C-alpha cells in the first residue's frame, strides 16, 4: 500500500508534436482507487505506464511513498500490472503464471503454492491451476491476470483497460468484482479505461484526461454535478449533456428563443463573459413542464424503464437536444414543449470552455 504522486510528470514520444502526458499533477492516497479516463490518445495509458516504469518520465517526477521513481526500473517499483490483453505466459500453467513473480523474488515453493492457492480461491480459479492459458475462457484469463497481480501483494496495482476484451455482460459482473476486491485488499490502484461508466462506478476519484492534460480530478459525483469544463461535461454522462450557445441578458441567459434562468450566483459569475455555453443534462429536461424550449422530435430511444427523445430546437435545425422521458413519449416528427430545471443549468465560457460559477 502506498501513496502515489505525479508531480508535473511529462512524457514526450520521440518525433511527437505534443507531449503524450503534459505536466500531470495527481496526488493519489493510500489505498485509493483512481480511474484515469479519456478518449483515445488522451495520454491515460502513457500516464499509467510511466508509473509502472514502462515509459520514460521526461520531465517532472512520479513518487511512490515519497520516493522518486525517475530512473528506477519497473521490477524495483513493487507495482503489479494487469494488461489489456492480460499478457499471460502461454507456456506456463495458471499456477505458474500466478507464482512467477514470487519465484523471481526467491520465495520458496511451499510459500509460493500457498499464496497462489489463496489468490486462486479468492478469484474462483482453484480448479484451473494446472491449465494453460489457451484452455481458458476470456473471463478466466482476466481473472488469472488479476490473480498474478494480487498474489504479489504489491504497493500499487496498475490496470490498463482490463475489461475491454470481455463481453458486455461479463464486463459488468467483473467490474463489480474488481471494485470489491480492491476495497477488500485496500491496495492503491490506478485503473485506466475509456469507458466512462467504468470510471463512474469503480473509482473513488476519477481523473479525466484530454490531449495529454488533466482536465479534472475529483469524485464521480462531483465530476457529474460540477464538470470543470465543456469537455468533461460532454464526456461524462450517457447520453451526453445538452449544450447550447448562449448570451447573457438581464435576468437570464438567452439560448435561441428561450430565456433560461440560472442561479443568481451563476449569473453574477457570468458577468463579463461574452459568449457562453449553456449545459443541461437530459434528465433535467422534462416534456411539458415549464415549456421554455420548443423541440422537434427526430427519434425516440425506448429503453424499457424510460426513454430518450432525440431532436433539435424548433428555431435552430442545426442544434441537437436529448430529453429523458418516461414510458409515455411523443412520436418522431412531433413538436413538443420541454421544460428546463434551471437549478441544474451549467454555464461555461464559450472561448475557454471553462466552467462559470458554481
Amino acid at each position, binding site marked *: 500500500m502506498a501513496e502515489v504522486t505525479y508531480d508535473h510528470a511529462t512524457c514526450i514520444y520521440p518525433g511527437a508534436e505534443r507531449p503524450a502526458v503534459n505536466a500531470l499533477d495527481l496526488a493519489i492516497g493510500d489505498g485509493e482507487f483512481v480511474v484515469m479516463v479519456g478518449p483515445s490518445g488522451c495520454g491515460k495509458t502513457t500516464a499509467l505506464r510511466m508509473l*509502472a*516504469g*514502462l515509459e520514460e518520465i521526461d520531465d517532472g517526477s512520479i513518487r511512490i511513498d515519497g520516493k522518486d521513481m525517475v530512473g528506477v*526500473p*519497473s*521490477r524495483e517499483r513493487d*507495482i*503489479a*500490472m494487469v*494488461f*489489456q*490483453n492480460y*499478457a*499471460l*505466459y*502461454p*507456456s*506456463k500453467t495458471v499456477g505458474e503464471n500466478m507464482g*512467477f*513473480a514470487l519465484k*523471481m*523474488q526467491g520465495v520458496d515453493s511451499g510459500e509460493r503454492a500457498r499464496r497462489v492457492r489463496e489468490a486462486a480461491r479468492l478469484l474462483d480459479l482453484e480448479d484451473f491451476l494446472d491449465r494453460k492459458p489457451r484452455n481458458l475462457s476470456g473471463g478466466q484469463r482476466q481473472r488469472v491476470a488479476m490473480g*498474478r497481480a494480487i498474489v*504479489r501483494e504489491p504497493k500499487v496495482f496498475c490496470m490498463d483497460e482490463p475489461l475491454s476484451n470481455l463481453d458486455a455482460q461479463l464486463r459488468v459482473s467483473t467490474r463489480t468484482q474488481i471494485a470489491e476486491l480492491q476495497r477488500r485488499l485496500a491496495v492503491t490502484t490506478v485503473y485506466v479505461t475509456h469507458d466512462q461508466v467504468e470510471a463512474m462506478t469503480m473509482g473513488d476519484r476519477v481523473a479525466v484526461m484530454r490531449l495529454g492534460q488533466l482536465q479534472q480530478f475529483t469524485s464521480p459525483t462531483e465530476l457529474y454535478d460540477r464538470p470543470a469544463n465543456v469537455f468533461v461535461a460532454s464526456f461524462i454522462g450517457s447520453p451526453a449533456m445538452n449544450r447550447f450557445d448562449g448570451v447573457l441578458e438581464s435576468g437570464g441567459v438567452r439560448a435561441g428563443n428561450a430565456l433560461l434562468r440560472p442561479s443568481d450566483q451563476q449569473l453574477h459569475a457570468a458577468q463579463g463573459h461574452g459568449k457562453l455555453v449553456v449545459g443541461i443534462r437530459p434528465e433535467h429536461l422534462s416534456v411539458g413542464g415549464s415549456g421554455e424550449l420548443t423541440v422537434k422530435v427526430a427519434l425516440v430511444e425506448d429503453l424499457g424503464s424510460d426513454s430518450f427523445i432525440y431532436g433539435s430546437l424548433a428555431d435552430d435545425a442545426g442544434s441537437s437536444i436529448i430529453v429523458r422521458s418516461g414510458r409515455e413519449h411523443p412520436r418522431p416528427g412531433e413538436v413538443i414543449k420541454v421544460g428546463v430545471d434551471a437549478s441544474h443549468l451549467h454555464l461555461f465560457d464559450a472561448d475557454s470552455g471553462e466552467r462559470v460559477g458554481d
Partner: protein
Amino acid sequence: MSADSMTAQPGPATAEPAYAGPRARRRNNSLTWGIVGWVVGILFFFPVLWMVLTSFKTEAQAYTNTPTLIFSPTLSQYKTVFSSGLWPYVANSAFATIVSTILVLALATPCAFALSLRPVKKTRDVLFFFISTKMLPVVAAIIPIYIAARDLHMLDNIFTLVILYTAMNLPIAVWMMRSFFLEVPGELLEAAEMDGAPLRRTVVEVILPLVAPGLAATALICCIFSWNEFFFAVNLTATRAATVPVFLVGFISSEGLYFAQLAAAATVATLPVVLAGWVAQRQLVRGLSFGAIK
C-alpha cells in the same frame, strides 16, 4: 437449330448451375489444386524414389535401357558403400553440422532478440548487411578463403568447415529467428519485467518456450545446409576433414559405371537429414508457419 445454339440458349436449365454455381466451382477448384499438388509432389519425389530403387539394384539392372521397376532387390551396393570407408566422412559431416548449428543458434538467438525486440535506429541497415553477405557468390570468395586457410595451416581441418558453415548459416538464422521473435507480444516482456524477472530469466522462462518451434526450424535448416554443403568441403579438405558430399563424388567415375553404388551412397547420405526432418516435422511445420498463424 444446331446442338451448339441450343446449349447457348439461356433458359431454366441454366438457372440450376447458377444456383449451385459457387459450390460446384469450389469443388472444381479444389480438384484442380489437388491435381497440381500431386503432380508437383510426384515431380519432387520421383527422383528420390528412383534413387532409392536404384540403390537396391545390381549395376547391370541399373543400366537396363528400359528401366525396370520389378526386380529382385540386393543389399550388395550398401555393403560396398559401408565397406569403402564411409564412416570417417560421416563423422566429419556430423561434427561440422552439429557444432556449426550449435554455434549458429548461440549467436543468432541473442542477435535476433536484439534486432526484433530491442530495435535501434540502424536495425534495418544491420539486417540488410546480414543478408547482403549471402548475395556474394561463394565462388568469388573461395580464393581468399583458401589462401587464409592455407596461411593459417587450417586446410583439411574440420574446424575450418565449422567456422565457414557457422558464417554461412548465420545470416539466414538471424533472419529466421528474428521473424519468430517478432511474433512474441511486447506485453509479455513487460509483464515479465513487472514480475521482477531479469532479462536472462525472461528469455529463458518466457521467450524461449514460445520460440522453440522457430528454434527447431532454424536448427533443421542449418543442419540441412551444413550437411549438404559441397563447395567449401571439396576445395578446402582432402583426406582428414572430407565430408559425406565429397565421399559421394568419389563414386562418380568418368565412365559413369557405378550408378547403383552411387545411388546407395546418396541414399545413406540423405538418411540423416530425412530422419532429422521427420523427427522435427511437427515443430518444423509450426515453426515455418509461425508468422502466418497466430
